[in-house]
């Protein structure tokens, strides 16, 4: 059975390419376009892992991550933070808000695959 990944990404084109990458890597993918949707889908879709963009409208990735980690139902889901903002402190901030690992954009499907596998312990 395919493992399920929730992709949180507000940019449509990026969502498209990353979605395709995840599918080619062999995962079942659901997409959330902002933090609020991400929190909702995390508890209804119950993915094995979340790939979370950090800079998003409505609710950003940091807030979404801490809400997901605050919910007993979803707190066990690992979160991979993916951001094009590679500024000092972002890594620490994302880890502090509940993300389990961090990958800087841009990345290729190989780099993404490696990061996910590491996090899932496959």
């Amino acid at each position, binding site marked *: 059975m395919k493992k399920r990944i929730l992709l949180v990404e507000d940019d449509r084109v*990026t969502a498209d*390419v*990353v979605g*395709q990458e995840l599918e*080619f890597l062999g995962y079942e993918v659901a997409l959330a376009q902002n933090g609020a949707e991400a929190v909702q889908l995390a508890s209804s879709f119950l993915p094995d892992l979340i790939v979370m963009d950090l800079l998003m409208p409505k609710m950003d990735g940091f807030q979404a991550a801490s809400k997901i980690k605050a919910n007993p139902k979803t707190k066990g889901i690992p979160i991979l933070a993916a951001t094009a*903002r590679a500024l*000092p402190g972002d890594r620490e901030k994302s880890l502090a808000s509940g993300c389990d690992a961090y990958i800087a*954009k841009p990345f*290729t*499907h190989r780099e993404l695959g490696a990061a996910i596998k590491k996090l899932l312990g496959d």
Partner: protein
Amino acid sequence: MLCFVLLIVLPPLGVILYSAWEQQRADIEKVEEDALRLARIASAEQARLIEGTRQLLASLAQLPEVREHNGPSCSDILQSILKERPLYANLGAIRADGELFCSALPFSGKVQLGDRAYFQRALKTRRFAVGDHQIGRVTKKATINFGYPVFKNGEKPRAVVFAALDLGWLNQMAAQAKLPEGSTFTVVDAQGTALVHYPNPEAWIGKSLASTSFVAETLALKTGTAHAPGFDGQARLYGFTPLLGTPEAGDLYVSVGIPRATVSAKIRTVLARNLTGLGGLALLVIALAWVGSDLFVVRDVNNLVRSTERLASGDLRARAGPPYPKGELGQLALSFDRMAQSLEQRTLELEKSNRIKEEFLSVMSHELRTPLNVVMGYTGLMMDGLLGEVSPQQKEALSKIMGRAREQLSMVDSTLNAAALESGTARIQIHETDLRDLLESLKSDYEVLPGKEITLSWLYPAEPTLILTDSEKLKQILRNLTDNAIKFTDRGTVTISARLLPDAKAAEFKVEDTGIGIAREHLPLIFDKFRQVDSSETRLYGGVGMGLYITKKLTELLGGRIDVESEPGRGSTFKVTIPATRA
């Protein structure tokens, strides 16, 4: 402040000490005078007593019992007279043949006193006569005897009445004079034998004191004063004079000694009182100076210092604040506050400007990377044939797109890094870093080298070696240097080494290459921004010339330094030294 207090206290201290010295001199003179006066009084008193004795003996000579040689009756009368006159040791009468027939003190048998000086003189001169002084063998009392001739109808004296004056009265006088404790009262004869001594007469009377310095002085000067130790060794001021009216008895001298310590003690008392007063004054002055200076100077300075310290520690709202004291200190406080005001404003502006820069960088980063994610994402998918078959030419094209996308990413990173470093928004995160892990991780990034005949050589500790630093920044430094070395080396070796310096306080990293090297004249310029040694090389080697600039900035951010040695055509060595412990 101490100087100020000294300035106030010194002159009166001088006056006090001088006047104490002056006073002491005056007091010594006064005590000398006192001693001499006492001696003179004693001498005059003695003269008076002698005159009294003369009158007493003159009236005794008129007594019928004396004239008639009526022994028992005479003795009774003299006994009762003696009772009333304690100054006399004895009263009596001697017949012209020298035999004692009447005495206030009891006697038995025949007593011959014909050899006594006063007896012979009285008979001879037919007048009042003074005998020699003598010391009673039993009583230890010094006495002077006086004789007076007794006549009955004839030219020839029938008898001599005598009185023995007890010199001990001088002791009583000394006691009444209320001399200071330790004072002495002494009567010596011409040979220096003590006839009277107060206090402790028993210990001294009859002893020769001629060798005692003040006695020697007395015998030499007769009247005067002396500073000398007494028989007991205590320093005294002596006044001395002859006892009057006894030329026949030989000279006697009376001397009064007052301890020098009395004078000193008195002076010391006054001195101590004055010095205590002065000490009080000094304390008062110090207190005033302290309170005054605290109120008027120290408080203001402290306030200013506190404000400065607050400002220095980052509290931009620190102000000395009104009311400003008068004078320079007030001006200083006022200008400090103005400075703090503009510093606060400027800092707020800078912080705001930095926030804007940081935000801009964040947005820039996001906007530049997001398209690259799409470019690299699709390119990667296509290269792996995941979006359909690709021909070898297409694959090669995709590979070049990917390569350039990565280069662009690297330039974006460099630019953003440089901007962050310059705007001061770059922060370091110090943590324990294992040199071995760091170098192994770096090594794994360089396992595939694109189309160059280069060997990478890695030298690092075989054991875990912990240092305290920002591992991300350090890795970026080493990556930049390694990238540079590879970039400017076509064939040969690039050696990357890491070690902890022997004192364990710093870590040293070297990246050596066998590449094109750098001309000596260019060495000072290579760490400048947007600089490549030769602009033609930019086209040849690519890049925007930010690498070494960023590397240097990062090294400085870690508190370290970067050095370079190079020889054109032979290669370059970059050495980075950073602190291995927290500063």
